[in-house]
């Protein structure tokens, strides 16, 4: 059971590196003073992971207040396990993200397979602190680690007639229990998402392999997932097994499940309600009261130009 700490704010927490350094230092002397209760207390509070990725830090110029590692890894929509956001963490151990290869096919010069560990070696990783807004009305701020999807697209060398990128989550009912339920599954599998080529090439679009400096937890979509910060969370497909370059707009899973309520674009937009609930506000995880949602989740400057000719009320 986690007890609420009334006095501690995120900004009061020691920065992770300092914290880790101090821990290393303390560990040196820990044998000698193992009974020292302050150390025991310190270790108990150790809710942040040890970094295992090399990456360039995001300096957080917008000064976004990060959600904790615990929050980000304990509240997840991952229907391949369960529809319950709180239960995913416990169930996610059946996913085996290592080794993991991605198939890249469709309209490319030459289809190929690539291992995620090779991608991590090949591209320099960087941290991106992004807002993340779920279509259900909750949100969080996550320090992702990854590389721009554009880098991978350049590597894949798509043909001129490739207009869209289609993504697929792994389909393996040994690893994903809900896929075993057939027609009783929560949604059709495998999970499919798609982006227009310009969206896919946008510098904000990230292929994430980690968060808080550590490789992704299973429940967050290990070992590699998409992060598109200006779109509702369901666009940011998890545990990607296949990327295809196609000419036609892909039919993404939620659009397939309910066309009236979910579209292909799914741009965050406070002006356009979901048919069943308002999108004007959002609740940041860990906060009791809501705040106003911003158009394109606050990334209008970076992405607004792609949609100047699009009727945002029609193309939801």
């Amino acid at each position, binding site marked *: *059971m*986690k*007890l*609420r700490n009334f006095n501690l704010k995120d900004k009061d927490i020691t920065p992770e590196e300092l914290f880790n350094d101090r821990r290393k230092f303390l560990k040196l002397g820990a044998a000698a003073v193992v009974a020292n209760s302050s150390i025991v207390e310190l270790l108990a509070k150790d809710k942040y992971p040890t970094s295992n990725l090399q990456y360039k830090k995001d300096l957080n110029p917008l000064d976004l207040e990060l959600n904790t590692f615990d*929050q980000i890894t*304990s*509240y997840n929509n991952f*229907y391949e396990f*369960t*529809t*319950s*956001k*709180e239960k995913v963490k416990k169930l996610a151990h059946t996913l085996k993200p290592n080794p993991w290869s991605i198939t890249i096919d469709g309209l490319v010069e030459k289809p190929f397979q690539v291992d995620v560990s090779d991608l991590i070696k090949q591209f320099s990783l960087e941290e991106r602190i992004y807002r993340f807004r779920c*279509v*259900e009305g*909750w949100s969080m701020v996550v320090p992702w680690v990854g590389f721009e999807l554009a880098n991978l697209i350049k590597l894949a060398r798509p043909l001129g007639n490739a207009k869209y990128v289609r993504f697929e989550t792994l389909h393996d009912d040994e690893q994903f229990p809900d896929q075993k339920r057939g027609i009783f599954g*929560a*949604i059709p599998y495998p999970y499919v998402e798609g982006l227009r080529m310009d969206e896919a090439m946008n510098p904000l679009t990230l292929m994430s392999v980690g968060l808080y400096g550590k490789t992704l937890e299973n429940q967050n979509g290990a070992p590699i997932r998409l992060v598109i910060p200006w779109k509702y969370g369901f666009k940011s497909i998890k545990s990607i097994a296949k990327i295809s370059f196609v000419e036609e707009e892909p039919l993404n899973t939620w659009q397939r*499940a309910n066309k009236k309520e979910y579209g292909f674009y799914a741009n965050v937009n406070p002006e356009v*309600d979901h048919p*069943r*609930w*308002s999108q004007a506000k959002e*609740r940041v*995880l*860990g906060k*009791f*009261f*809501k705040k106003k949602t911003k158009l394109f989740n606050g990334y209008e400057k970076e992405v607004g130009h792609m949609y100047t000719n699009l009727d945002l009320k029609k193309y939801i």
Partner: protein
Amino acid sequence: MIIRILLFLTLLSPALFLAFNIIIVEVLEPVKYIYTFTGACSIILLFSTTLLSLIKNKINLLKYRRMIGLYTFFYAFIHFLNFFVFDAQFDLNFVVKESLDKPFIYLGMISLFILGFMAVTSFKSLYKKYYIYHRFIYLVMILVTIHFVNAQKALSIEQWVYLLIFIFIMAFKMNQQKSLLIKR
């Protein structure tokens, strides 16, 4: 009397559990949690009250029906307060707009209104006059079933179970009504 007190405390305990979870234990999305929790309590109690009248010929527990019914309203009312206070943050415009606009919200509001009416008219003197309208509870069952199904992105297993119970109670009730008519 002892049974009555025990029942009172048992039915109150979910509310205490909820308060404990919200105030002491860290819940990531408290408002959503209050919705789910109070909604589930209210629906389960709603099923229980209707079940009591269905089984009255076998075991007569009707004397406890009022308390369970009042608790049904109690949890539904917390559910509503959660909407009004924490979700809408006292924004009356928002409440009215959403209530008229979003089907699952107006269905919930109608149900709350009926439950409130039943709670008020559950006192002996008023009940004599209004008991006939208490049959609206079956309407409430239909409305809240649509309400909770419509509020979801996809149904969970628990919710499928609620649906099954709902169908079971409705079938049983219709069967009972039919046999009553035949007897007459």
